[in-house]
């Protein structure tokens, strides 16, 4: 441990150690790097973090994070509001936006139904989703949820809840990833890909 460091440095190390990907050792290394570059790294980082803490909020429409409410995606008039993509967490929105292939809007559930952990529909933003779809402006709901037991259970539950709205509900395809070598794929993915095969 940083026995010779003052309490301020110890606290910095302890907080950095709690970040994803960091532990006590790497937290110490990160703290040292920041302290060595106080003007060029530590000060801007502290400012950025303070600004994020003060300004970032949860979008009241989709549940994503941004500095405005509604968020930039919800407020962007050029996006196709008839397409609504349902995702588990904000990280999934960022993943979809990285690709840039989806031009519709999002709805963040804030988790998945989990039979094991007893997480029910009331703990997720499913009621808000049904409200958004029921207002008539959505033409298709795309469920972009994990291909896991919990993810697919959630997808089926949402499809059931939305059945009365008569809005088509689709799911992302499952199968061979781009650049995927069959040799490295698990049996489940290969079987799913076979079932979802299409004319060449």
């Amino acid at each position, binding site marked *: 441990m940083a026995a010779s460091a003052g309490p301020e440095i110890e606290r910095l190390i302890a907080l950095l150690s709690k970040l*994803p*990907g960091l532990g006590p050792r790497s937290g110490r290394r990160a703290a040292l790097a920041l302290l060595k570059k106080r003007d060029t790294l530590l000060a801007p980082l502290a400012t950025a973090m303070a600004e994020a803490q003060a300004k970032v909020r949860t979008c009241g429409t989709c549940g994503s994070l941004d500095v405005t409410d509604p968020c930039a995606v919800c407020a962007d008039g050029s996006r196709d509001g008839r397409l609504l993509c349902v995702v588990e967490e904000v990280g999934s929105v960022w993943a979809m936006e990285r690709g840039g292939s989806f031009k519709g809007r999002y709805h963040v559930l804030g988790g998945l139904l989990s*039979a*094991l952990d*007893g997480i*029910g529909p009331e703990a997720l933003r499913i009621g808000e989703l049904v409200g958004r779809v029921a207002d008539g402006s959505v033409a298709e709901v795309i469920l972009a949820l994990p*291909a*896991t*037991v919990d993810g*697919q*259970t959630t997808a*089926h*539950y949402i499809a*059931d809840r939305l059945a009365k709205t008569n809005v088509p509900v689709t799911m992302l395809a*499952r199968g061979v990833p781009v650049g995927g070598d069959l040799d490295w794929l*698990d*049996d*489940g*993915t290969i*079987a*799913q890909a076979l079932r979802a095969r299409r004319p060449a």
Partner: protein
Amino acid sequence: MGNPRLSLEWEDEAYVLSARSHGETGAIVELLTEARGKVAAHVAGAASRRMKPFLQPGARVIVRYRAKVEGQLGSATLEPMGEGPSSLFDDRLALAGLSAAAAVAAAALPEREAHPGAFHALEALIRVLEIPEIWPAVYVRYEAGLLQELGFGLDLSKCAATGAFDDLVYVSPRTGRAVSREAGKPYHDKLLPLPPFMLSSQGGLAEGDVKAGLDITGHFLEQFVFGPLNRPLPPARLWLLDRLAEADKL
């Protein structure tokens, strides 16, 4: 070789019952093996793209387990066997059945106590989950099998009151023993209806039979297994009943 349950290093086949994240990349995984019963282990790298597909309830795996001290949490490496639960992803009811079966086993079975019957019952259920006409009845038999393994088996061989072998249509909610129609008549509203399929696989399935079966196994799971542990039935089982009711399968 000695008692297999107490070995500090072993390899076996198992079903994954649950997997909970532990740290950033690992998971604590509950497994059901034939020879060692329910075993928990730390699995490193569980968050990796390679391992996530089979760290799902119902996935069959080869486990290589290692522990330093008997009784402490060991670590394990897992290799998948076959497709696993992804074959059920398009079947909402079967997914609910699988989740409930895994959750009930995870909550009801004690750790490191061999229950080969529970392993085989889960195996039999998973094999038929793709056949919607029969799996709800097999699920009931699975729970009855769990009760049997835990020492609270139903005795449906003859009437508890008269010893008769025929016309068994009730189960006593106190003892879990069958009661014939005639002997049960005065206590009709206090006894649990016994569906024919629980007596014989040739019994056929009528409307209400699955619900009657689930009522019986649910009653005794609550009374003998979860009640003494001061725990309710797992939510997954309640959800299964809801899903079956919505689909008109009870």
